[in-house]
């Protein structure tokens, strides 16, 4: 049983904070130049594409990766602060975000040499957008129920079936997808799934857009009809994808995007509250700030564990569980805090836009990347309960 949890109070080193200042300067000049609007809920994809090139030029994509593939072998903490500043500024980072966070690291660990030398430099240049093909119409949290098939054919694999809720599939260059290559065995129901790199321009792929209640329209159903993949696009072990996920999940679950997605609601709250609001409003703001600070310190501490080469699986799941529930509640608590504010304040239009937008997309925060229920199972396993 493991009930002793330890979170070292990591202080980000000076050079890392210097990098933060650099990123801030860059973002401020981009905002000043009108490249993007930090208060706008939506930004055109063309802006995302142009922005990715600019970030790439600064060397901030794939910055932790090996030099041999164009990376800089910088620390994970460097990546952490770049990510934080991008999130806070609401920067248009969608072209490279997924690839930088998880697809690239997965390729580095498990892909063939040809794929690594061909694809990683494109990611680092801000030219390759990735999507993740996990969920299917009948398999969401239960990943191992995936049915979308990859069957062996001459010199490669043929894919048939469909994936769903695939963010940005319609504008991605690549997908890392999980496909069924064998039936599960009686002893191991996780057996029989294989990861592949899919070229999204390959013949036989159709992306059907699915619009969301938030107005964000990046979901897709991806249909595969006899899509051919060469042999060396298998990522890792055939039938053994279940062995490959652990550390990546800790990176994916403990980052600042797990508690800062709706931060704009808090920033807008402080703006409409003004310098000396009534005590009730001060208390609400103070409590929210106390919460987000505590979450951030825990997330930074987990980043330090990852940097030190540990595998904080349960700790990362805790960050995501507490963080996503908090960021989901945030706009609701902001609404409650401002119930008695006069609505004629000049800042109110931006405030209401932020509040409505965050409330509309907040429900998915505790679903994507591992639901609350799945995370609590992971934590319980870490405690030795299952």
């Amino acid at each position, binding site marked *: 049983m493991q009930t002793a949890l330890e979170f070292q109070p990591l202080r980000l080193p000076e050079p890392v904070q210097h990098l933060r200042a650099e990123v801030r300067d860059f973002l401020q000049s981009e905002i000043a130049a009108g490249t993007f609007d930090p208060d706008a809920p939506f930004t055109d994809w063309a802006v995302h594409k142009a922005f990715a090139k600019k970030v790439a030029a600064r060397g901030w994509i794939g910055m932790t990766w090996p030099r041999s593939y164009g990376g800089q072998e910088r620390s994970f903490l460097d990546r952490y*602060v770049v990510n934080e500043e991008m999130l806070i500024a609401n920067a248009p980072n969608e072209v490279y975000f997924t690839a930088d966070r998880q697809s690239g690291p997965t390729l580095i660990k498990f892909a063939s040499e040809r794929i690594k030398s061909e694809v990683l430099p494109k990611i680092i240049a801000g030219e390759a957008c990735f999507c993740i093909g996990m969920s299917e119409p009948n398999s969401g949290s239960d990943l191992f129920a995936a049915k979308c098939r990859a069957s062996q054919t001459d010199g490669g694999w043929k894919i048939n079936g469909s994936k769903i809720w695939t963010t940005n599939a319609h504008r991605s260059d690549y997908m890392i997808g999980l496909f069924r290559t064998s039936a599960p065995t009686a002893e191991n129901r996780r057996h029989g799934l294989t990861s592949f790199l899919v070229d999204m321009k390959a013949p036989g792929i159709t992306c059907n857009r699915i619009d969301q209640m938030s107005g964000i329209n990046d979901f897709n159903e991806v249909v595969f009809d006899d899509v051919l993949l060469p042999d060396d696009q298998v990522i890792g072990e055939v039938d053994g994808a279940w062995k490959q996920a652990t550390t990546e999940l800790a990176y994916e679950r403990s980052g600042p995007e797990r508690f800062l997605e709706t931060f704009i609601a808090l920033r807008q709250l402080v703006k409409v*509250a003004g310098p000396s609001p009534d005590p009730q409003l001060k*208390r609400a703001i103070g409590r929210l700030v106390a919460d987000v600070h505590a*979450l951030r310190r825990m997330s930074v501490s987990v980043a330090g564990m990852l940097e030190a080469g540990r595998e904080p699986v349960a700790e990362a799941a805790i960050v995501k569980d507490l963080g996503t529930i908090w960021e989901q509640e945030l706009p609701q608590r902001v609404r409650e805090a401002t119930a008695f504010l006069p609505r004629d304040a000049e800042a109110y239009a931006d405030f209401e836009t932020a509040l409505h937008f965050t409330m509309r997309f907040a429900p998915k925060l505790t679903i994507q990347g591992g639901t609350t229920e799945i995370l609590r199972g992971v934590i319980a396993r870490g405690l030795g309960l299952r």
Partner: protein
Amino acid sequence: METDTIVLASAERLFADVADIQSILAAKDDSWKPRLWGGIEETGLNIAGVPEALGGVGLGLADCLAILKVAGASAVAVPLAETMMAGWMLGAAGLELPAGQVAFGPSAFGDRIKLGDDGLLSGRIERLSFARECGCVALLAEGASGLQVALVDLALADIQAHENLAYEPADTVVFSTVRSMAHAVAPVGFALQTTLLIGAAARAMQTAGALEKLLAVTAEYVTQRRAFERPITKFQAVQHSLAQLAGEVAVSLSAAASAAEALESLTAQGRGFADPELCLEIMSAKIRTAGAAQKGAAIAHQLHGAIGVTREHILHRLTLRVLAWRDDYGNESQWSEYLGDIVCSGGEEALWPLLAIR
């Protein structure tokens, strides 16, 4: 071994030997209390934060707080935290810590202590933990020419006994023109809220330690308990409740450790107690651990069922204490208002830079 590791190890041993929660519950009387305090003085825990030049161990605040985490896990019911903080504050002002148990104030937001040039002191302190069991109190007082650290004999005070949620003394103490035993100008950087901030950091750490123990006790119980012909850990509802408890424990441990590190390193850099970064760290830890106490205690009781609410069970020694500590040295509403004030007066542009500073 370093001094801090040696002291921490002896604290752990002492609490296990003399302050075992189950043995204390079974005890017929309070004779364990003087035995525990004797052990504390013998191992020097009371003088952990007193400078070596004044006869103490000379540990920094972060190391003192690490000891309090262990004390929290043992639900130690003597004024160790208070005496330790008193020793640190007196020492910082160049004053000696007397033997015995010493209270530490002001302990509530409304407290005001005035110290005249004539050395006479007046004022009122609320919720002063263990006051009636202590010989004297270390106070931060307002003098004519600035803040003063003073040591005052509690025999000269009018003490109105109050009990906190955990059945411990949380007394109201009134001084009407009494002479201090010793006083000195408060160190540079001290502010009116200094004792509240140090006390808040201590309570946050004690809470984190107690919650960690609560998680261990609860995890063990649900592993052993069977219902519906299986261990109750097989039920997903039970697993998820315990996972939530672990989350509250994790965020408390992280916040309290972060505040302790900030308290030591920022004061070492010469930053004062009004420093926004220091305030954010400590206030956040106090506010968040108080929230965790409430949620964590509820989950631990729910998972234990009826046995957990009995007097014989150790659970209440932990749950009632973490709940009571929420009210000491500023409750979460008061600190939230204080923190909200700092944030609002800084404005929206200053919020993220403040959060990202560490």
